[in-house]
C-alpha cells in the first residue's frame, strides 16, 4: 500500500488527536470528524488486494467458479483457496462496504454530537469544555 497515503492518514490521526484534547467543543467535534476520516481511509487502505478496477463486475452473468471454498487446516489451507493463475483485478470490496457502513454511522453520531454541543451551549452559555464540571467529584 501507498506509504504516502499511510503517512497522510497518520498525520490526520495526529491532528485529530490534537484537536480532541482542546477546550473548545466545536474544535473537539472537528477533531472527531477528522479522526473518523482518518480511520475510514485506514480501513480502505488495508484492503486485501490492490486491484485496478472498482469492484463492479461488468461482464458475464454467470462467471465460472475459479476459487475453491474449503477449510482444511491440517493441510494448511484456509478458505478460500485461490489458484496461482488467478490474479485479482478488482479492489477489495469488503473494506469499501465496511467503510460505507462506518461513514453512515459516524455521520449520524456527528449529527447527534453537534446538536448536543448546541444544547450544551444553551445550558452552559459557553463552548468551553473545561466549564463542564458540574458533575465532578
Amino acid at each position: 500500500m501507498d506509504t504516502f497515503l499511510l503517512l497522510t492518514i497518520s498525520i490526520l490521526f495526529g491532528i485529530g488527536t490534537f484537536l480532541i484534547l482542546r477546550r473548545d467543543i466545536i474544535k473537539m467535534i472537528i477533531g472527531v470528524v477528522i479522526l473518523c476520516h482518518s480511520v475510514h481511509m485506514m480501513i480502505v487502505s488495508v484492503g486485501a488486494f490492490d486491484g485496478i478496477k472498482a469492484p463492479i463486475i461488468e461482464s458475464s452473468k454467470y462467471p465460472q467458479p475459479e476459487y475453491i471454498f474449503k477449510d482444511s487446516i491440517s493441510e494448511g489451507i484456509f478458505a478460500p483457496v485461490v489458484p496461482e493463475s488467478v490474479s485479482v483485478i478488482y479492489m477489495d470490496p469488503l473494506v469499501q462496504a465496511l467503510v460505507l457502513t462506518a461513514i453512515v454511522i459516524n455521520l449520524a453520531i456527528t449529527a447527534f454530537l453537534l446538536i448536543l454541543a448546541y444544547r450544551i451551549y444553551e445550558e452552559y452559555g459557553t463552548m468551553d469544555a473545561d466549564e463542564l464540571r458540574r458533575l465532578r467529584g
Partner: protein
Amino acid sequence: MNLPVAVVLAIFLPFFFAILVPYLERIVKHNIGWFSALIGLISFLLLVLISPEIIRGEVIHYSVSWIPSVGVDFGIYVDGLSLLIAFLASGIGFLIMAYSTEYMSHREDLARYYQYILLFMGSMIGMVFASNTIQLFIFWELTSITSFLLIGFWRNKPQSVYGAKKSLILTAGFGGLALLTGILLLRAITGTFDIPTILADESLKVLIKEHDLFLGTLFLIFIGAAAKSAQGPFYIWLPNAMEAPTPVSAFLHSATMVKAGLYLIGRVHPIFSGTEAWLIMVAGTGLVTMVVAGFLALRQTDIKGLLAYSTISQLAYIMAMYGYTTYQDPSLGVVAATYHLLNHATFKATLFLIVGIVAHEAATRDIKKLGGLRKEMPITFVIATIGALSMAGVPPLNGFLSKEMFYEASVDIGASLGQPYNLLIPMIAVIAGVLTFAYSIKIIDGIFLGKRNDEHLPKKVHDPSIIMLGPAAILAFIVVLFGIFPSIPMSFIIEPAVSGIILEDISIYASLWHGFTVELLMTVVTFGLGIIIYKKYDAIANWQDEFNKKHPTFSLNYYYDEIFGNATENAKKISLKFQVGPIRAYLFPIVLIAILSVLFPIIILSVELTPITFNFETPPYELIVFILIITTAVMAAIIPSYLPAVIAVSALGFLIGIVFIFLLAPDLAITQILAETLTTIIFVLVISKVPQTFKEKIPRNILYRDILISLTVASTVFLIMLYATQGIIEPFESVSHYFLEKSILLTGGHNIVNVILVDFRSLDTLGEIVVIFLAALGVYNLLHSRGERK
C-alpha cells in the same frame, strides 16, 4: 423424635416464626413477646431432647448435599461444645424475651424487636451446629447483621447509628472478611470445608501445621474470632454496642454473640493449638485485653458501659485460657475456659438484667446519680450482689471456681514456659483479677450502697414485677447452684464440651474447697488488693483523665474515628482528584493506553520488528491531494473562527472523497461527498446559533505536550498500519474472494460493494440504519429535554 430433625427444627423454627412475627403481631398485639419467648423455649426443649445423646459422649453428624460444585454441604454437627453455646442461646434467649415483655414499652415497634431477636437466636443456634466452615460463616455473618440491626433498634438516636455501624464494620466487615479468607485458606490446604473431616483426620492436622499458609490461616481465623469476641484492638465496638435495648445487650453482647468468637476458637482448637503461634496469638491477646479492659471498666460511670468493658475483660480470660495450650498438655486451660464461658454467661446476663431493671426504675444509668437503693429494691439488691460477687470470684459462687481454675492454669502455663513467664503470666492474671474485683464492688456500691442520691433519683423507686425479676432470679439461682455443686455442670455440660474440643473423653473433678493452694493465696491477694484499688480509685482516675487530655491520640477509638469518621471527607478528596471534571483529563488515559499498547510489546516483550516493504510510487496528482488534505486539516485545527474552520473541514471531506476515487471506490466517493454535505449543513446550522469563535489560549507547555502526544499517537497508528497493510499473511486468503466470486451467482448483483451491504452483510446495514434511527430519536430527546422547564 429423629435427633437431626430436632436440631434442624431448633435452628429454623426461630427463622420461620421471625418471618411470621409482623403478621402475628397484628393479631396478638403486644403479647407478641410471650409468643416469641415460647419459640425460644421450644428450641431450648428440643435441645434438651438431644442432650442425653451428647452427654453420653456421642456426636450427631448429618449432612445433605447443598452446593456440591464447590464442595459445600448443608450439615449439622452437634457435640458438647456446640450444645453448650446453643443452650445459652436458646435458654437465655427465652429468659430475655420473657423479660422484654415488661421491659419494652408497648409503644415501641415490638414486631421488629422480636423479629430481630428470633432471627439472631436462629442464626446463633445455626452457627454452632454448622458442620462446615462456609455454613458456619453464613450464620456467623447473620448474627453480626442481626446484632447491627438490634444495636440500631432506636434508629433515630445518633449514638445508636454510630454504635451499629461500628459493630458492623468490625465484626461483619473486618472480622467476617478475615474469617472468610481464613476459611478459604484452610480449604486450600485441606481441600475440604467439612469440620468433622478435618477434626477426625490426624494427618490433615499435621499437614495444616506444616503448611506454608499455616500462619496466615491461623491469623485470619483468629482475627475473625477476636473481632467477634471484642478482643485485642477490636474491643472498641462493644462499649458502643450498649446503645441497644438492655435485654439485647444482656443477650447478644454478653451472653451469646460475643461467645461466638470463643466458640470458633474452641472449634479450631484441635486444628491449630499446640503451636507457638497459637499460644502467642490467642493467649497473648487474651492477657493484654483482660488487663486493659479491666482497667477501662473501672473508670466507667455508666453502669452499662462498665459491664461492657467487664465483658471484654471476662471474655479475654476465656480467650487466654483457650490459648494456654502448649505441646505438653493439650487440655490445659480448656476446662477452665469452658467452665468460665458458662459461668460468665450466667452472672453477666444477671447483671445486665439488673441494670435494665435499675435503669427502668430509677431512670438513669449513671453511677454518680445512683446510690442507696438497697432499701427500696431489696430483691434486686440480693440478685445483683450474687451476680457481682460471682464475677468478683467470691466463694461459694461459680465465678470463684472458674477464677481459681484460671489462676491454676496461668501458673501452670507460666511454669511450663519457664523464665520469665512463670512469674509474668500469674501476675497478669492477678492484676486482671484485682481489677475485676474492684469494678464488681463498684457496681454494688454505686447502685445499692451508700447514700441515696435524692437530687437525681425519682421519688419512688421499687422492685419491679415478677416478670422482670424472674429471669434474673433464675440466672442468679443457677449461679449459686453451680457454685455450691460444681459437679452438676461439670458432668453434664463441661465434660461433653471439653471432649468436643480436645476430641477425647475426659473426666473432671471439681469441688468448692480444694485445700490450701497457690491459687487460693492468689485469690486472697486479689481480694485484698481489690479493696485497696477500689478505695484509692479516685486518684488513679484523676491521673487517667489528665493523661487522656494530654494524649488524645492514645486511643483506638481515636484511630477508628479518624479512619471511618472522616472517611467521607478523605474519600471525597481522592475522588475529586480523579474525577476532575474537564473531559480532556479523561481522554488522556485512552490516548496513553493506545501509545502503551504499541510500546508494551516492543519494550517489555522485546519483539523483533520484521522487515517491511515501502511503496513510494505515488502519482504526483495524488501527492498534491494528500498535501491538500493535510493543509486543510491543519487549517481546520488552527483557524480560531468557526465558519472558516468548518469550511476547511468540509473541504477536507471532499478531498477524502477524491482519495476514495483514487482508491477505486465509487460508492464510497459518492457517499463521502454527500455525507460531507450533510455534515456541513448541520455544522453550519449549529455554529450559526453559537458564538462565532472561542479563541482558546493554549499555554506554551500544554501546546508542546499535546503536539508531542499527537505525534506519538500518529506514529503509533502509522506503525500498526504499516504492518497491517503488508498484505494478508500466508497461507490465509481474504474472504473477499468469496464476494467477488459468488456475488453474481448468488445475488445477481454486479456492484459488489452494494451486494455486500444488502446481501452478504445486511445485518451491518440494518444496524447502520438503526443508528440513524436512534440519532433522530436522540436529537428529538435532546431538543425536547428542556421542554417546559425553561
